[in-house]
């Protein structure tokens, strides 16, 4: 306080904005620090108990090993020249990200029932920092899934793109997708507040999001009405981005810039809404 006044005096009237800028900068640093603190907890929890990660590996393994292997024999799906298992691998990664994130809200309800949310809300932490921290936490879990899917894909002989920039791109898409879907999940949790109702809605959402996307077949195969839905489905852009970045021969149907813009835009909107709704979970 004193220091700021002295600085303002020394610099004279020109720099009236300086204290304000310094103040905003400090606020931003605190915001980022608190967001990372919340995410840091997730890392610590995973270190204490990594068994959850192992059980999460079962589903993508089933899809790739069983569904993927069988459909590779059929050769009925136009994949743009890719082997079907290659075409499908990014779709299954996107699916893992979706499944792990869309049920993330259950942990919010769990924390609510324990009183953890209440304590977070009573602390002087911006609501959006709490929500963003949770989004990042889901991203960390989703990243662990990505490692599993990569291992499976390599095992199945999928031609991967190991360019470091492309890998950084995959990480970005995984974090962004997880942040988006987990925050949608958080919003649902804030609205329904009980585990039973939440599970119902979660079940209703996941499968349509998955099937009305380009994860395991191209959108061009769909009937017209479903194509419209698939184009509105953010998962389609997640898959498209991952397909372009993950595979050696990968191409994007919509362009990486559009994929990124849509996911980033949608994530920003839901985080802002989530920040508004999060306090409601405590009441």
């Amino acid at each position, binding site marked *: 306080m004193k220091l700021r006044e002295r600085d303002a005096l020394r610099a004279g009237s020109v720099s009236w904005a300086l204290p304000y800028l310094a103040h905003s900068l400090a606020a931003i640093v*605190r915001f980022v*620090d*608190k967001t990372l*603190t*919340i995410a840091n*907890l997730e890392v*610590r*929890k995973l270190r*204490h*108990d990594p068994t959850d990660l192992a059980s999460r590996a079962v589903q993508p393994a089933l899809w790739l090993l069983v569904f993927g292997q069988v459909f590779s024999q059929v050769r009925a799906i136009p994949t743009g020249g890719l082997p079907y298992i290659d075409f499908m691998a990014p779709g299954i990664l996107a699916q893992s990200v979706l499944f792990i994130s869309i049920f993330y809200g259950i942990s919010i309800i769990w924390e609510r*029932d*324990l*009183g*953890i949310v*209440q*304590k*977070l*809300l*009573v*602390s*002087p*932490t911006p609501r959006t920092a709490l929500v963003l921290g949770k989004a990042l936490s889901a991203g960390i879990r989703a990243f662990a899934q990505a490692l599993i899917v990569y291992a499976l894909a390599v095992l199945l002989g999928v031609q991967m793109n190991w360019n470091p920039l492309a890998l950084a791109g995959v990480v970005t898409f995984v974090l962004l997708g997880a942040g988006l879907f987990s925050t949608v999940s958080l919003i649902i949790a804030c609205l329904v507040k009980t585990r039973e109702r939440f599970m119902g809605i979660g079940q209703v959402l996941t499968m349509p999001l998955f099937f009305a996307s380009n994860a395991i077949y191209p959108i061009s195969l769909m009937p017209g009405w479903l194509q419209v839905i698939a184009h509105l489905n953010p998962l389609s852009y997640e898959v498209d981005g991952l397909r372009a970045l993950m595979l050696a021969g990968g191409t994007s149907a919509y362009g990486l810039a559009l994929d990124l813009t849509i996911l980033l835009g949608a994530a920003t909107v839901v985080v802002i809404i989530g920040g508004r709704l999060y*306090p409601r979970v*405590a*009441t």
Partner: protein
Amino acid sequence: MEPGHDDMAIVETTALTRRFDAVVAVDALTMSVGTGEVFGLLGPNGAGKTTVVKMLTTLLPPTSGSATVAGFDIVRQAGEVRRVIGYVPQLLSADGDLTGYENLWVFAKLYDLPRAEREARIRDALAFMGLLGAADKLVRTYSGGMVRRLEIAESMLHRPRVLFLDEPTLGLDPLARQAVWEHVEQLRATYGTTIFLTTHYMDEADSLCDRVAILHRGTMAASGTPADLKAAIGKAEATLDDVFKHYAGDALETMETYREAARTRRTARRLG
């Protein structure tokens, strides 16, 4: 300089009201708590105690009326209020998947404790609550009393001016309750913290509180020192239990919901 210092009341409510649809949980409550007091809000389950605490800790906006904590308005200056209060919810709220140290570390960060002091404060808080030996164990291995003490340590890290304890000893065994009381007493003696607690245990109010208020169906039925209240009902040898019965009547006619009862049992089971 700082609002609400010295002799002024540190918590003040004026016609504070909260409705949930048709139900009036807190009805035009006007009361004040002096700086440095241990103040007890008593009442049967469902009397509105937790709702009062939730409003004062900025978790729940009031429907009407107003309140200040340390001179800050709980609605317009919610951010300032959050900086000067500590809160231990009724539920057992420490994170079982983290260690005791980690539970404190989060809040040290969220309350912006200076980096240089952080470790020392966490260690002091753990030592103060007698948890230094268990600091690196996962909280899910703690006993109920240890979890409670950890939570109080957590809520004191930033040296709040007012500490809100919602049913601090609910479900604890007598020895653990005694330990929590001693620590609360010590907190007040060491840091001069004002303590605002809710309870429905009369012995707790009797042994801890300088002043109590009895809440019944969202309104204030009586307030004063435990001795004053006992004297006021005009029965020789009255206990605080008698006072409570006198003002709150039959606890059966309260509006505790099924959900609340279920939650209380769940907390008790975790404390088991």
